[in-house]
């Protein structure tokens, strides 16, 4: 056989063995070691930061949920609502609208969302903050801005038979500022707020 063919075959054989060995190191040992450390030291985080209500898992603190009336896409007045989602908060279809900043379809979406949020919460359109009318990147954004939580207080209080002051207190308790003063935007975790709300409405 031609020597260059033999050489090429030998080179490819060495390359394949190298790949297999490195697969063992970086594709098997590495993820297993990291999983071991993670499961031992940060069990809760490594498994999705699940949160409970009444002793039952009701979701992940990090994954946003839909707060619509069951079986519909109508927002339920008794819950705080999250940001618009491109997938109805389905974690298996993450992603966003991908529409450009001047796109006519996006203009229509934003206008419709603004009108809907304003009417739903009985506030003027000028009070509706930007996160309430724009789709998140992940479609499962767990947070809203404190402003968006504020404009929902009155509606949520009424629907749950609570005083506005009580609900306002809950929002305040669940508002997170910037970590170290410059990391994260100020935000409210919708699931945790709604769990606290359910607790308050029960009493």
């Amino acid at each position, binding site marked *: 056989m031609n020597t260059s063919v033999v050489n090429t075959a030998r080179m490819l054989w060495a390359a394949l063995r190298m790949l297999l060995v490195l697969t063992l190191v970086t594709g098997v040992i590495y993820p297993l070691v990291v999983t071991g450390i993670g499961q031992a030291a940060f069990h809760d985080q490594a498994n999705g930061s699940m949160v409970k209500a009444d002793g039952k898992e009701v979701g992940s603190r990090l994954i946003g949920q839909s707060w619509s009336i069951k079986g519909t896409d109508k927002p339920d007045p008794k819950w705080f609502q999250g940001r618009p989602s491109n997938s109805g908060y389905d974690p*298996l279809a993450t992603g966003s609208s991908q529409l450009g900043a001047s796109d006519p379809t996006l203009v229509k979406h934003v*206008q419709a969302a603004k009108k809907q949020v304003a009417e739903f919460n009985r506030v003027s359109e000028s009070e509706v903050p930007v996160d309430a009318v724009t789709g998140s990147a992940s479609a499962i954004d767990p947070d809203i801005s404190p402003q968006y939580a504020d404009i929902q207080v009155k509606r949520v209080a009424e629907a749950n038979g609570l005083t506005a002051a009580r609900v306002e207190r809950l929002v305040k308790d669940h508002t997170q500022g910037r970590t170290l003063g410059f990391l994260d935007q100020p935000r409210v975790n919708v699931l945790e707020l709604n769990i606290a709300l359910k607790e308050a409405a029960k009493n």
Partner: protein
Amino acid sequence: MSSVLADVLLVAALIGALALVHRPLGDYMAAVYSSTKHLRVEKWIYRSVGANPDAEMRWPAYLRGVLAFSAVGVIFLYVLQRVQDKLPLSLGFKPITPDQAFNTAVSFVSNTNWQSYSGETAMSHIAQTAGLAVQNFVSAAVGIAVAVALVRGFARSRTGDLGNFWTDLVRGTVRILLPLSVIAAVLLISAGAIQNFGDLHTITTLTGDKQAISPGAVASQEAIKDVGTNGGGFFNANSAHPFENPGGFTNLLEIFLLLVIPFSLPRTFGKMVGNVRQGYAIVAAMGIIWFLAVVAVTWIEYAHPGTASQIAGGSMEGKEQRFGEGPSSLFAVSTTMTSTGSVNSFHDSYQGLSGGVLLLGMMLGEIAPGGVGSGLYGMLIMAIIAVFLAGLMVGRTPEYLGKKIGTREIKLAACYILITPALVLIGTAVAMALPDGKEAMTNIDAHGFSEVLYAYTSASNNNGSAFAGFGANTPFFNTTLGLCMTLGRFLPMVFVLALAGSLAEQKPIPATAGTLRTEKPLFTGLLVGAIMIITGLTFFPALALGPLAEGLAA
């Protein structure tokens, strides 16, 4: 505190951390690639492969190693995706189709990580950890190896030897990428990134609905995805997914990780050529371009001139609440400028002109600071072009680091810089001429064109991010973009290694009073200017048709 002040502190913290780390890391990497000792695990690897780690290679041999290893990687990854349903931990996913498996295989082997699939509904545990994540490591190590070979070309004289590819590959993986990734992965888990091999976990929400929570070895893959400037997300939403990037701390950490090796390698280069100031001139050029782009995109995003953004009151479409406009812009610039391509917000929904800056960042050839390894060798090629231009102005034979830049060297450098523009412009033109281009667009008008231009720019420059409205999963795009990624990665490497070989053979010429001082700020300015002029002239017409037209209309 206001958003703007917080963003300034964020950028300052990032730059501070990079400044602090580049020196020990750069020196460490120089020591790794200069050492004559082998670790025990490395000796075991060489023995089981049957490679002699101390045998020197000339450039053709080094190149054959790169190509053979990458070819085997493509085939292995292709087969793994095609049979994933027959392996354990398949999560019930079907085999990936042939064209998409080809596209994904070359995408990960070429350090591009363009993804026409959605991780959460397509790839099994094994395909992710033993296939894709492995290439995240080794494709990055290949990039650094080629850069180190070029640096040796400058550092060595009267020899054709460039080192040993297998040794460089193994050392980059074992001594640099693995330790960094382990530390990063543990930090990511501590902040909320998941790391498990479980099954889909369905819970009942307070409203009585069901929600399926994804499992996965996410943190371990996220770490190397950033450290190795790969960018392929575990999930479709990439680093916007809260399980990949749960908050402000991880966001800063991930930006730091994707910049840390590219910004430290110039120190390694300086150390290896015996003058760290040469490295600082290079890193200054990288830093200036990166910083200007950060300022530009952040400013445009806050100004939000787009019609829809004006009505909404901000540029938050496709961005997460926990990040906001500023940190999203910082991530977007850093990911497009490093050939990473992971995203924490969707570039398709950025303001028209911001999208243009992100595109330009890739079109510059991924050199500010560029991907791991590829950024350094791309920038050194531009430095050769810059000394050549300076030489033309004064009528002297150009030289760089004591090596003559003769006809052969400048031809190789010129070939290098022609490859990606040719791939981008021809690819875009063909796609636009055929019905495929139009059918893939989510957006209309100039922005629709930008989606196609972005796709070919991203693939050819091995970035991997997208204007993700672009419907890339068709046989036409899987194939043509796959070819762009392959040629955009490996053709330049051929020229870089040939150049390295030719430089290593030269004898050094002593510096004289007439030598251009390439460690001075003047040279950094010349370098930045040369990059802007060459890229600007090449891509200006295409940019004018897409993002400029859109941005000026708003």
